[in-house]
Every structure is written in structure tokens, then in C-alpha cells.
């Protein structure tokens, strides 16, 4: 780690990160405009059409009442898991390779959660009443049903959203202070407010360290519980393929898995387009590749266990559901998922693969496609084969749904693009902690002396 950044000085870090925020070229504006318009056209317009026409605009039917909206919701919550969870775990284990990338990973968490929240609105039949699921005193004296797994979801995701936002903000306070000193005009005002007057005194660092550690300790069990709770939306039903105790670990492992792949994608993009080649290096991709391999093995094991216990149970419903999953209408999706999520990551055994940037990018995208398919299969195949054979049916997503899925990626990209221009996407002070301290006199450009000093 130290060897990679030996020729970097502290001042270079400040300069590079501030430059990434302040300097915007035409490429950025084109990207932002494209992402924004795709979001509008592919996410919001079809959704408004669906609000007018009813859920019938999507492909859902009886019995396939849950479809890609819920699968997307789970996918985006899963994607949100790696950022903050990984950041917290690696912080508590004092690992150094996390330092350059955790800020963007945490941002990924936050925006994935926001996109997932919009999917709740899209999925529900009467979203204009969705506020009824919140506990607030009202004239009807009605309260939400706290026994419902969907309500655990509401509480857990609200907590996770708050926790992630607070976590990323707290970690950024010193960086806002550093950027504040080098900007002017409206940016200066914004960063002055955001940095709260941070000066970097030993007392402030001490307090920040403890607050950050306590937040990490609180957020780790929270993140595990959030995806377990999302899995219980399914596991607490009586549907044969869904009513399984392994769902909680299955979903948590799947979430960290797809989130890690998401981080690899985001790191590649940041490195290439924000000039962070010296900060995000082969070491990061190497470690992420090892993590991806580990998670892929665990994920494959859980899938194998599901198949084995389903077969071993001997019950006709369970067996029928598994057979449908592997050889039925959606079987091509199932085998594609196995290929992308169980077979392809085995390439990460080879260090040459792990340390090459473009192959890792392709693998990470493939893993996420496979994981999305997994979520879709969980929802689609299980509802197609329940207890009463007369009610078996197949569900095919409609164009509106596919467009909204595409639009959700554009929405995420738009939010992320706005983020990289406001918040330092590489953590300045944590990167400096991994570098040698400056031993020569300063090479920084002379700064104006601070106000109020007799100089």
C-alpha cells in the first residue's frame, strides 16, 4: 500500500480530490444530461402511466402478483449492503486497503437505498396512501400492523437510510473542511456549513474516532438485520419455495455479494473518469476479487443446500417448485444465474485475473446481472408453483417494467454523478493515513494567511 503512493505527497491528495470536485469538463455534463433524461424517460414517464392505468400496465397477474418491482427492490437493497457494511467491518479490523474507496462505496449504499425506496412506491397498488404504513397519530386512530414483515421492512429501511446518511456525513466532515479552504463562492458557503467549523484539533479527532467507531458497531448488526428482514417478507409466507429458514442468511450473503460486485464497477468508473489512478490501484481490485470469490463460494453453497433440502424433503410441493425452477418456463434464467454467479467468479482464483481492471469490470457486471436474475427467480418461480395446481401460472414482465428497471439504473447514476461533484469521493484524510508523512518542507502553493492574524 505504501509503495503505491510513495511518490504522492499530502498536498497532491488535496489537489487531486479538490480538482475532481471543482473541475467539470463537457464529458461530465454530457453524462449527467444523458443519465437525467434516461431517468425521466424510462423511469418516471412509464411510472406515471402506470399510476394512471393501474398495476395492469405491468405484467403481473394471478398468481404472479409480485414481479420485477419487488425483485428490483430487493436487488437495490442488496446492492446497498456492501458499501456501509463493508466499510464498517473493515474500519473495525483496521484494514488499510479500504481507505481510498469506502467513501464512494458508502455513497453507493445511500443511493441504492433511495432507489429501492422509489421501487416501493412503484410496486404498491395505491401509492398515494403509502404514508399509512408509517406510525403517526391520525384522526382515524389507526396504526400500522407491527406484526407484518412488511412493516419490519419499513422500520429497518428507515433506520438503515438514516444510519447510512449519518455515517457517510460524519466520515466526510474533515474532508469538507479541507475542500472548504480551496473553494470560493457558493461552494465555499456550502462546505463551510457542511464542515461545521471543523479545525482538526486533537480533541475533535478523538471525538470523531469514537463516534465513528460506535456508529460502525451499531451499523453492522443493523445491516445484517435489514436484509434478513427483507428476506422474511418471503420466508414468512407459506409458499413452498419461499418458506425456508435459510432465506435470511441467503439474502444477506447475496446482498454483500452483489454489493461487492457493485463496488468493483463503481471503482472502475471512478478510477477511469475521475483521474484517481494513483489512489484506486491493483491492490484494491485484488482484495475485492478475493472477497468476491469468497462470497461466490458461500452463495453457491447456500444454493446447493436449498436444492438438496428441497429434494431430500420428499414433499411434492417443494419438489415441484424446484423442478420448475430448474427445468420449467424460466429454466434458461436459472442456468444463466448459475453461470454468472457460481461459475464465472471462480476466475478470481487467478491473481492475474483479479489484478486486471477490465476483466474485473466485466465480471462484476455479470455477477450483478446474475444476482438480479436470482431475485427475479425467487419472486417469479415460487409464485408460479404453489399448493393448488389449478392456480399455477406464469408471469412475464411487460415493457413498462423493463423500462422502469433500466430507468432505475439511470436514476442511481444521476444521483451518483451529482454526488461526485459535491462530496469528495475519495477520503482525503484516510488516504493520507496510508502515506508516509511529509519529511521535507512544504511544496504547497502559498495560501493567504488566515483572517484575523497579524501577519
Amino acid at each position, binding site marked *: 500500500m505504501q509503495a503505491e503512493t510513495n511518490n504522492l505527497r499530502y498536498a497532491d491528495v488535496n489537489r487531486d480530490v479538490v480538482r475532481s470536485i471543482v473541475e467539470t469538463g463537457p464529458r461530465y455534463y454530457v453524462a449527467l444530461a444523458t443519465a437525467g433524461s434516461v431517468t425521466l424517460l424510462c423511469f418516471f414517464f412509464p411510472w406515471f402511466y402506470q399510476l394512471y392505468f393501474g398495476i395492469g400496465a405491468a405484467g403481473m397477474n394471478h398468481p404472479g402478483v409480485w414481479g420485477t418491482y419487488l425483485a428490483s427492490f430487493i436487488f437495490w437493497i442488496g446492492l446497498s449492503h456492501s458499501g456501509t457494511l463493508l466499510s464498517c467491518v473493515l474500519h473495525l479490523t483496521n484494514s488499510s486497503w479500504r481507505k481510498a474507496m469506502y467513501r464512494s462505496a458508502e455513497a453507493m449504499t445511500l443511493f441504492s437505498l433511495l432507489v429501492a425506496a422509489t421501487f416501493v412506491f412503484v410496486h404498491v397498488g395505491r401509492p398515494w396512501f403509502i404514508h399509512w404504513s408509517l406510525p403517526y397519530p391520525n384522526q382515524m386512530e389507526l396504526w400500522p400492523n407491527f406484526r407484518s414483515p412488511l412493516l419490519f421492512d419499513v422500520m429497518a429501511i428507515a433506520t438503515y437510510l438514516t444510519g447510512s446518511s449519518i455515517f457517510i456525513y460524519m466520515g466526510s466532515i474533515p474532508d469538507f473542511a479541507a475542500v472548504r479552504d480551496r473553494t470560493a463562492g457558493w461552494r465555499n458557503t456550502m462546505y463551510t456549513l457542511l464542515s461545521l467549523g471543523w479545525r482538526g484539533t*486533537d480533541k475533535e*479527532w478523538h471525538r470523531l474516532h469514537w463516534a465513528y467507531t460506535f456508529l460502525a458497531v451499531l451499523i453492522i448488526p443493523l445491516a445484517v438485520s435489514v436484509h434478513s428482514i427483507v428476506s422474511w417478507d418471503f420466508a414468512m409466507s407459506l409458499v413452498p419455495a419461499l418458506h425456508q429458514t435459510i432465506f435470511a442468511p441467503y439474502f444477506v450473503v447475496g446482498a454483500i455479494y452483489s454489493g461487492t460486485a457493485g463496488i468493483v464497477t463503481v471503482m472502475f468508473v471512478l478510477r477511469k473518469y475521475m483521474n484517481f489512478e494513483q489512489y484506486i490501484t491493483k491492490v484494491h481490485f485484488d482484495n475485492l476479487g478475493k472477497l468476491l470469490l469468497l462470497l461466490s463460494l458461500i452463495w453457491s453453497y447456500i444454493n446447493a443446500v436449498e436444492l438438496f433440502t428441497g429434494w431430500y424433503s420428499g414433499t411434492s410441493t417443494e419438489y415441484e417448485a424446484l423442478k420448475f425452477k430448474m427445468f420449467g418456463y424460466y429454466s434458461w434464467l436459472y442456468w444463466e444465474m448459475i453461470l454468472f454467479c457460481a461459475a464465472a467468479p471462480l476466475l478470481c482464483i487467478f491473481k492475474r485475473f483479479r489484478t486486471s481492471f477490465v476483466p474485473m469490470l466485466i465480471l462484476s457486471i455479470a455477477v450483478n446481472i446474475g444476482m438480479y436474475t436470482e431475485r427475479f427467480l425467487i419472486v417469479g418461480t415460487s409464485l408460479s408453483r404453489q399448493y393448488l395446481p389449478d392456480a399455477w401460472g406464469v408471469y412475464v414482465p411487460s415493457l413498462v417494467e423493463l423500462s422502469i428497471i433500466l430507468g432505475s439504473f439511470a436514476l442511481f447514476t444521476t444521483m451518483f454523478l451529482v454526488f461526485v461533484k459535491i462530496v469528495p469521493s475519495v477520503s482525503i484524510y484516510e488516504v493520507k493515513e496510508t502515506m508516509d508523512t511529509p519529511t521535507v518542507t512544504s511544496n504547497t502553493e502559498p495560501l493567504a494567511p488566515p483572517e484575523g492574524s497579524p501577519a
Partner: protein
Amino acid sequence: MTNIALGLFHEPRSALAAAGTLKGAGFATPELMSPIPIEGVEEVLGEKRSVIKRFTLFGGLIGGLSGFALAAGTAVLYVHPVGGRPIITIPPYLIITYELLIFFGILFTVLGFFISARLPAFRDRVYVPETAVDKFAVTVACDDEEHFRRAEAILQEAGAEQVREVAEEG
């Protein structure tokens, strides 16, 4: 208006040594400003106690109690029998308790951080922008000119690049 002696160093060890010497010479506790947290501050300047953990604990307890009170209390306020289950069901309500425990724990931790770090700052205080880049600063309050000369001498001896006298309001 107190006068502050400020010394800029280019690496943390000498800054820390200077702070230690100042403290030993009878000055008020010096403050160190740095771009990254410095190792070994507590040995030189004394143990720091963090009150944040009390906030976290308190927040967690409040959260847990209010979580269960919310779930069980609202169930009792408007009785709504479902699924052959009792009105106060323990396992789901424990989940709500847990989530609100974490939620309030997080909020109170942040509150504790703000209170103990005295942020946000509402008045101007001594600040040198270089310390956000690659310089380490030691500041110490001086009563008069003579004090300042002594502080300056100690800082120069420890290897400061610059020593400035700064005035701070209040």
C-alpha cells in the same frame, strides 16, 4: 482577547514533542491541529475521556423501550385481531424494538459527538488552512508578551517552520 502562539511543523513527531514541552513548562494545555489524527497524543497531553459512549447507551435504551412501547402500545390502543395471533406478539415486536434501539443509538451518538466536540462552531476560532493539507500546528494560549516569547522559543527549538501570534475572540 487572548493571544495564541501558533507553531507550524511539517511532521507530527516534532509537533507532539513541542506540545509536551509546552505543557511541561507550565503553559495551558496546548491544542494540536492536523490533517490526520496523530498517534500518541494521549501519552503526551493526558488521557481523554469520551462521553459519547454514555450517549450511545442512553440512546439505545430509550430506543429499545420506545420501540416496544410503540408496537405494543399501538396494538392495544386499536385492537386489531389478525391471524389467530395474540394482540401483543413478542417476536415481531422484538424486531421493532431492535430497529428502534439502533436508530436512537445512532442519533444519540451523533448528538454526543456534536456536544463533546463543540461542533458546529458558532464563533471564529484559530484556524490555519495549511493544517488541512500537510502541516501540523501547535497552539497555546499566552497571557502576555513575555509568555509569548517563551512559547516561541520552545516551539522554535522543537523545529517549527513558522511561529505566529494570533488573536482569538473571546
